């Protein structure tokens, strides 16, 4: 078969991702590969319709952007608004915000690992079809996720969309005792996850999936960084291990673009290069702050930092899950439920505030302009919007690798591999169209 050019193929709807989206590949006459990640989620226009709303409602309104990482949106908006209102929050409230982000990250990572990505690693269509031995372990992971969701429910009244989060703290908080109740089960979960890492490592070793999907490249990665701990709430924004921006000027370091083929916006660095965010980016910037159990698993899974291989994002999620289980236990030990909110004064002047946190899938930016107690302007930049360009770039490199320059060698299997690469980024399309729901 000769060299074939000018062909198109597409995956209409990728299963096992959060939201509706597909991939279109176009190989042009001159042999160039174009990859479009198309988000077809309906546009929900959050940024527009929250204009005019009361600041107290914004955390719970923006929670509805995403059912998997709603907590991250809630905390990002609360952070942006407490910054705008110049509220001096006591340490315990900030710590509970951090605790919530960690719990949400465990929840979201476990959903992604169990339901969305483990079937790729094991080679089944769904977790319902796992071999009995794996299924048994997976049921245990599902129970760990359920445990974490119970803790979230105790803290904010619901495991999906919380009830008590406002920019000046919380409307109410449970006592430490109600949380400590779960400590023993959390400790057991950590051991369990360390043990299961051996099995995942063996399975990957046997079927060679990781080396098959290896993408040889260098890329930019961005995440929070502070000098004290593995960050989800505190810190500067670091690009390739270099702390560069604070949250007020991040939007000067990146730019947003709209494209006609997708309902999600995309971002690029200011020099027009793509970058990735999420578990692997965080790990690349912060592996020095991992707890020993997480470092042990990093070793078991043979992950070296920095890694630029998209598939490794799943492993980074697994390692982070263990880290946050340990960290959550520590935060619960320091938990203080009072005061749960602070007095604040709404002034008359127009104010601006940005809040950057790490959502499970990476850097999440909420930015508001408020006048008195009403929203005048809102801008939300989600992790998925940020890594779409990098995702398209990875698929392009992968297609060139497997076809070795002869694009006529594209096979059906390549399409399945592309699906796996997309899933390893863990795109959240509900979020990406926040205006709607990418």
């Amino acid at each position: 078969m000769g060299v074939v050019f000018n062909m198109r193929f597409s995956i209409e709807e990728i299963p096992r991702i959060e939201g509706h989206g597909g991939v279109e590949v176009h190989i042009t006459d001159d042999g160039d590969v174009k990859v479009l990640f198309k988000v077809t989620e309906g546009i929900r226009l959050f940024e527009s319709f929250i204009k005019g709303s009361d600041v107290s409602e914004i955390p719970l309104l923006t929670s509805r952007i995403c059912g998997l990482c709603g907590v991250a949106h809630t905390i990002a908006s609360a952070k942006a608004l407490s910054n705008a209102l110049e509220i001096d929050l006591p340490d315990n409230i900030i710590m509970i915000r951090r605790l919530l982000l960690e719990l949400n990250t465990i929840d979201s990572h476990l959903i992604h690992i169990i339901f969305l990505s483990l079937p790729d690693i094991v080679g089944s269509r769904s977790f319902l079809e796992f071999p009995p031995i794996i299924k048994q372990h997976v049921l245990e992971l599902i129970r760990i996720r359920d445990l974490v969701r119970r803790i979230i429910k105790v803290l904010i009244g619901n495991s999906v969309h919380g009830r008590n989060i406002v920019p000046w703290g919380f409307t109410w908080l449970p006592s430490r005792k109600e949380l400590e109740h779960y400590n023993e089960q959390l400790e057991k979960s950590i051991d369990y996850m360390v043990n299961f890492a051996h099995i995942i490592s063996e399975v990957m070793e046997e079927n060679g999936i990781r080396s098959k999907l290896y993408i040889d490249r260098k890329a930019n990665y961005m995440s929070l960084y502070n000098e004290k701990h593995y960050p989800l709430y505190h810190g500067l924004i670091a690009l390739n291990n270099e702390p560069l921006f604070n949250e007020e000027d991040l939007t000067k370091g990146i730019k947003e673009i709209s494209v006609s083929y997708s309902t999600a916006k995309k971002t690029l660095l200011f020099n027009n290069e793509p970058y990735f965010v999420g578990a692997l980016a965080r790990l690349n910037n912060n592996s020095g702050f991992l707890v020993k159990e997480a470092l042990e698993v990093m070793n078991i899974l043979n992950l070296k930092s920095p890694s630029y291989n998209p598939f490794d994002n799943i492993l980074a999620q697994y390692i982070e899950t263990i880290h946050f289980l340990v960290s959550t236990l520590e935060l619960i030990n320091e938990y203080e439920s009072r005061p749960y909110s602070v007095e604040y004064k709404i002034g008359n002047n127009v104010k601006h505030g940005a809040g950057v946190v790490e959502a499970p899938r990476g850097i999440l930016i909420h930015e508001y302009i408020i006048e008195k107690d009403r929203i005048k302007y809102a801008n939300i930049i989600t992790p998925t919007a940020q890594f779409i360009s990098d995702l398209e770039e990875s698929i392009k490199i992968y297609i060139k690798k497997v076809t070795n320059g002869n694009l006529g060698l594209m096979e059906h299997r390549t399409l399945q591999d592309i699906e796996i690469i997309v899933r390893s980024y863990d795109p959240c399309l509900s979020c990406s169209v926040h205006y709607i729901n990418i």
Partner: protein
Amino acid sequence: MRKLKLAHYILTGCEGCSSSLIDLLVNYPDILEHFEIVSSRIIGYTGIVEADIALVEGSIITQHDLERAREIRENSRIVIAYGSCSYILFINSLKRLVNDMDLKHVYKNIIPAEPHIEPKSLTRAIKVDYFIPGCPPDPKETYKILTSILLGKRIRYPDKPVCYECRQKNIPCLLKEGKLCLGPITMGGCGAKCPLYSSPCWGCRGPATEADTCIFEKAIKEVKIDPMLLYKKLQMLFGDLRD
């Protein structure tokens, strides 16, 4: 007894209902003894297939959503509007307040190709047999409704509003504190969980049949709630019904 074929479909929404569905499967494992999951993107089976029961979450926002909704209806014996976006449009009804100018503002003059239509709930777009309210639905209530269908029992929804449950539990009235709470006009059955966390009711369970509209109107007048905020909140509850 034959297992009933259960399909789960997602239209436009946040997919928090999917998360709640997983909670259902984890906490009520006997569901899988009586129901066979034949479609669910999150579980790994895509496509619209023939089923006894279809749980449909999300709203109709695009033309594609509408076409899928119709196809789901044709292929399912019983269709359930699963969650507030599907049942009453809820948060997505706020999009009805936004005009094309705003779409341009968000997308900087490039409007994405996916054709958008006036947002609608599933209930208004096709014939729906039952609904499971909530943002997201409580797994316990989902379990109750699914097992009622299985056993051929009549499904009853609470008549009393959330306000009634607050009074039963002696939860201090948030309306009296000047907070815009939709408890008096929203269907109960949730245990007044938001007011329990000192957070006002947003009406996610839809209008109550025995709504305390008098209490509501009186309280709104007394505490002088900003009409714009009231309008937006009522839009979430009733916005789907407007043409």
